[in-house]
């Protein structure tokens, strides 16, 4: 079986990260933190 190309591997990893619900929890919290920072400053 052929090895996936480097760009193919990165594309697959990016998709896996984006489909991982664990990724979106810190992202949502980060956006919330930035919104609070904007509000208080």
């Amino acid at each position, binding site marked *: 079986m052929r090895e996936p190309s480097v760009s193919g591997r990165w594309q697959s990893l990016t998709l896996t990260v984006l489909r991982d619900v664990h990724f979106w929890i810190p992202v949502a919290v*980060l956006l*919330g933190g930035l919104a*609070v920072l904007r509000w*208080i400053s």
Partner: protein
Amino acid sequence: MDQLIPSQQSPAVNPNRLRQLQALGILCGFGAGAWLGAAEAPTKLVNVGISPVVVSLLMVAGVFLARWSVPALVRGTGQIGWDFRQAPHLVVWGVLAGCLWAVANTLTIFAIRDVGLSIAFPLWNMNSLIGIFWGVTLFNELRNAGARRWLSVLGGALLMFLGACLLAYASAAQTTPEHALRGIVAALAAGVLWGTMYVPYRKAYLTGMNPLSFVAFFTIGELVTMIILAVSYGGGASPLLRELVMAKEVLFWLLLGGFVWVIGDVFQQYAAKYVGISRGIPLSNTNQLWGLAWGILVFGELRGRGLSLYAQVIGGSLLMAAGAGAIAFSSVTGKEHGSWHEAAHREGRRYGVSAEYVQAGLAGEDSNRKIAGANSRSWLDWSIVAIATAVFVGLAAVSRIPDIAVNWAAVALLSAILAAFLIACGAALWKATRFS
């Protein structure tokens, strides 16, 4: 993909090894508390009119230097490259964690300004409760642990929270909060951000990444976010540069604070790896106790105040110590570690990480060492160490010793305790895991 995953029936880590790693994680948690608390000391020497955001940026600059030079010295950058090739997706998690840290740290500055340290500190210190929540819900921590261990961890964290409230109240300056709601929201948001920052930590360590590699990626997100925030809040790059030039005499102390903080954070990372975030983070939150010890013993804070204040300090310290003790004695059982094992292999399957790498991480072993033999340092490693050293020496040469009363006997005593933690944690990490 299935061939990457070892049988779930095979024992994850043998019981003796598990006990050794547990003890190591708990020792690192206490070491982290002492070093993170001491990181506040150099910043107390800075008493010039530079903005809090710039103070934070300069500490992060010291952190950046330390986060690359310490791993280069201890393991070599070749090991970072090896970790990157094994689990490249963790770079994203490291950078994300760094962004969370920088925003949280900036929020704490505004929280202190608006409601004072006494209210803000316990509010953001609830990050350990958030960490426990994520540890349990996302990573199977405390699963199959039994009622007694649940009680120890949750009860210990609550005791520490109460102790933190009492200590913060005792150490409060006489401030008049002008924007109470704004400050409380900022402190709570900082606690949620810091508590959630442990999601990427745990993700990385369950997958087998070495803490010294993770922090190298973490610091990129930290420094970039902090520069963006400092430029935004400072009114552009030129005013920021002017402020940095104006503060050149104190740059060394701020960078030193960042360096000391990194040593504590490295121990915190190892604690998160070997005892999980639900136990490691509350233990490293004893930093408040050490910060107060430096303030009272070295800088004479609270001098001449009433007996009731000292009673509050002693009471708060005892509560925190009791909470930390309860958590330290709630060791991970074989069954609970089996649940960690399941979570680790779930991560391995999702991202196609080799089972050998994941298993080596869980057992505190270095999968690269098995393959490539002993670590070696390259010219790049020595260059990084030389540049970091040159920056610190150069800034020390132009720095000014602040005109502030310091109790040098207390400095010597607390520094000796720090050295003892450094030697004990460093030797234990080397002996048990070779810094894996």
